[in-house]
């Protein structure tokens, strides 16, 4: 069965977090990702999507297939219009949190994927872009 090349999942509750990571998992399986890479990607999405529900309340996770120079991957963009992050460097440090978690979300997600970009400003929302290429 053909799988869509792009999916957008509105994030408003914790069940949307599950929907977003499952959408990416399906897409990745369609591209022939290994089950380890599917799990790494799904876990990274879980972390960034949870940041949306925790800090912004609502937002979106957009998942799409990337094709460039003969390689295939999956790009995930998690965006919200929440409070943004004041100190990006600090937010990317293990163990730092302004919530009540472990502070592993962003730094952990970064370790699970091949590309990671964070675009945020206080009051201007947060946009996290993840890419995982098929090995």
């Amino acid at each position, binding site marked *: 069965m053909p799988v869509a090349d792009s999916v957008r999942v509105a994030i408003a509750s914790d069940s949307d977090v599950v929907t977003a990571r499952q959408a990416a998992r399906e897409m990745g399986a369609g591209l022939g990702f290994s*089950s380890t890479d599917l*799990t790494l990607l*799904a876990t990274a999405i879980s972390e960034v999507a949870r940041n949306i529900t925790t800090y912004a309340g609502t937002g979106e996770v957009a998942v799409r297939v990337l094709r460039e120079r003969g390689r295939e991957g999956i790009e995930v963009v998690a965006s919200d219009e929440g409070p943004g992050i004041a100190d990006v460097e600090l937010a990317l440090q293990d163990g730092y949190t302004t919530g009540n978690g472990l502070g592993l979300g962003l730094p952990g997600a970064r370790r*699970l994927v091949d590309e990671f970009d964070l675009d945020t400003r206080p009051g201007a929302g947060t946009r996290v872009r993840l890419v995982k290429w098929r090995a």
Partner: protein
Amino acid sequence: MAVPILKQGPFLIASIQAALTDTDVVRLQDDIMRQVGRFRSRGIVVDVTALDVMDSFVSRSLRGIAHMTRLRGAETVIVGIQPEVAFAMVQLGMNFEDVHTALDLEEGLAFLQEKLTAEPNAGGG
């Protein structure tokens, strides 16, 4: 979806059946704590074989269950962490060192049984 919790002798077995939302995880925590008191359980097995993702929230919650039940006199053992999930947890930076784990349900129950037998007041006299 609620996680079924079975009572087997002095132990409880919680078998996670499908992907868990954060709400499900919190409910599992509450349910286990309540049942440990109700059945005076001495050990809990949480079977996570069906989980394809254990992110920081789920991992932290399971660790929380292990710590809280220990304070109530019951040991928790987490069984069935899939190899890919274990790999992702390590990459993520999750510290699970103070939590008992076992390969599967059988090993988990054997571990709890051994613990119970090793206690000086085993069997209650």
